[in-house]
């Protein structure tokens, strides 16, 4: 198992080096991705297109730095490549671009697309009796996109149980707190009403995450992972300002000190 601190340090260094990016929503994702890539998903870094692998669709594609760090630390590509985030010619584009980097199962970045794509993938897998499962991570602000609910309605209707949704419930979006921009609650009730089994957990607690993922159900599972935007760096936590801003040299040093 990798330590969350290593991933968080990667994220901060990458975004600092790139001069732009989304630290808040990357830092909130860390433990969710660690759970998926070290405990949950059947994957083979030496064979990233393995036919019966589990797939991930990071619908909140702006969390790319967290995913890139996890993929590199898991062995899909050299860790040194992380420094090239957002550079011209790099496979680490600002938002995930699957043709450019091994380990990506889908290009994402436009909010509201990922769940439907994940559902289509899951449907394709079950049509071929492929045991691969699909995991889709949504942001909480993203739930304001109507297309998410078109997809949320269709997955239980098609009895797709090989798909799991994780909502990174970090409570903050670009402009402000989610509840102040456009409230999305009651979240658990909404997903239940659409026909999903819901598990709520602490998205930074590996044990609680494992419990949520192991929920037994005959329905598609939606995990609402309560997280903290900017988790691990005091001045970034719960701050809309750090949704899409790169730390300068001083801020990076301060943040890295806190992570130690």
């Amino acid at each position, binding site marked *: 198992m990798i330590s969350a601190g290593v991933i968080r340090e990667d994220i901060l260094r990458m975004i600092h080096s790139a001069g732009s990016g989304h630290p808040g929503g990357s830092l909130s994702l860390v433990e969710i991705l660690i759970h998926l890539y070290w405990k949950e998903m059947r994957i083979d870094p030496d064979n990233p297109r393995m036919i019966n692998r589990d797939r991930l669709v990071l619908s909140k594609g702006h969390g790319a730095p967290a995913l890139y760090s996890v993929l590199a630390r898991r062995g899909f590509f050299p860790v040194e490549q992380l420094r090239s985030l957002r550079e011209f010619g790099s496979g680490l584009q600002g938002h995930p671009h699957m043709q450019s980097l091994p380990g990506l199962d889908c290009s994402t970045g436009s909010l509201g697309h990922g769940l439907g794509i994940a559902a289509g993938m899951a*449907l394709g897998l079950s049509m071929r009796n492929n045991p691969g499962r699909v995991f889709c991570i949504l942001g909480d602000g993203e739930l304001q996109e109507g297309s998410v609910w*078109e997809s949320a309605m269709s997955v239980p209707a098609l009895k797709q149980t090989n798909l799991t949704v994780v909502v990174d419930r970090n409570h903050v979006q670009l402009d402000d707190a989610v509840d102040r921009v456009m409230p999305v609650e009651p979240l658990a009730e909404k997903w239940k009403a659409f026909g999903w089994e819901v598990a709520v957990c602490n998205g930074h607690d590996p044990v609680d995450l494992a419990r949520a993922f192991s929920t037994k159900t005959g329905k598609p599972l939606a995990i609402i992972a309560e997280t903290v935007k900017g988790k691990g760096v005091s001045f970034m936590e719960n701050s809309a300002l750090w949704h899409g801003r790169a730390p300068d040299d001083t801020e990076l040093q301060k943040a890295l000190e806190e992570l130690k």
Partner: protein
Amino acid sequence: MKPTRQGYVEGLLEAGETDERVVVVDGDVSRSTGTIAFKEKFPDRFFNLGIAEQNMAEYSAGLALEGFIPFYSTYAVFAAGRAWEQIRTSICNMGLNVRIGGAHGGTSVGPDGATHQALEDIAIMRVLPGMTVLVPADSNQTRQAVLASLNIDGPVYIRYGRNPVAEIYHREDTVVPGRGRVLRQGKHASVMAVGTMVSAALQAAEILSGEGIEVSVADMVSVKPLDVQLIKYLQDISGIIVTAEDHQIAGGLFGAVSEYTSENRPCRVIPVGVADSFGCSGTPEEVMAYCGLTSDRIVEKVKRALEEG
């Protein structure tokens, strides 16, 4: 007379027979577009996702990622318009093998009125990187467009109509992406048309011929990639081109031909199409007349161009 949608369904059934990867994603219009026939024949490969075009486009992307060839099928105005950004950012950006069947294209939906008449779909599909755009003229050609799409790498938009149209093609006349077809040759001007306007162009050529004016008629079924060799060939015969399409003048076939000629071989290109307006209710013939989509309008444009020189 046969509706182009019939050719779409015939093509789908054949494609489904020959290629197990073919699936249909429909949005509650299967009785109207006829894809219900695919459902009856291949119930495990037909998915009605309800009235939710964005989700349909996304499911199609996901199915294509898993190696299927989904035909995402609904009315053109919604297929292309409602889910445009899903098509752009998910389907085209990943270069996925999704086929978009835009039914009821143009003014052919007649009585349904402006909301349901897709007059901008060719333009908004044509600008998307990697998208092939096919606009067949009759039922046989629509069937062939569906079959041709199976061999195209990347996304394809097939735009077809609703109502019976005159049969122009034989069943075996193939559609080749990047290739148009000269249906008639004449030295005074060239009419380049797509969809239902191919038939109007042939009628116009007949009328003009009666007055001693001979025009070529080319079916530009492949709006993208455009058959530039055919354009060059016809330009060598006459320097006057009239385009005809059941679509806005801006951005469709007129746009495509003008872009090519203005950069490479400047000449007069004169549009027959909808002039920055919406349609209305009426029979397809009434609406087409109201929008200026007639053989008479083509005749008039050719004559005026010849007078102006």
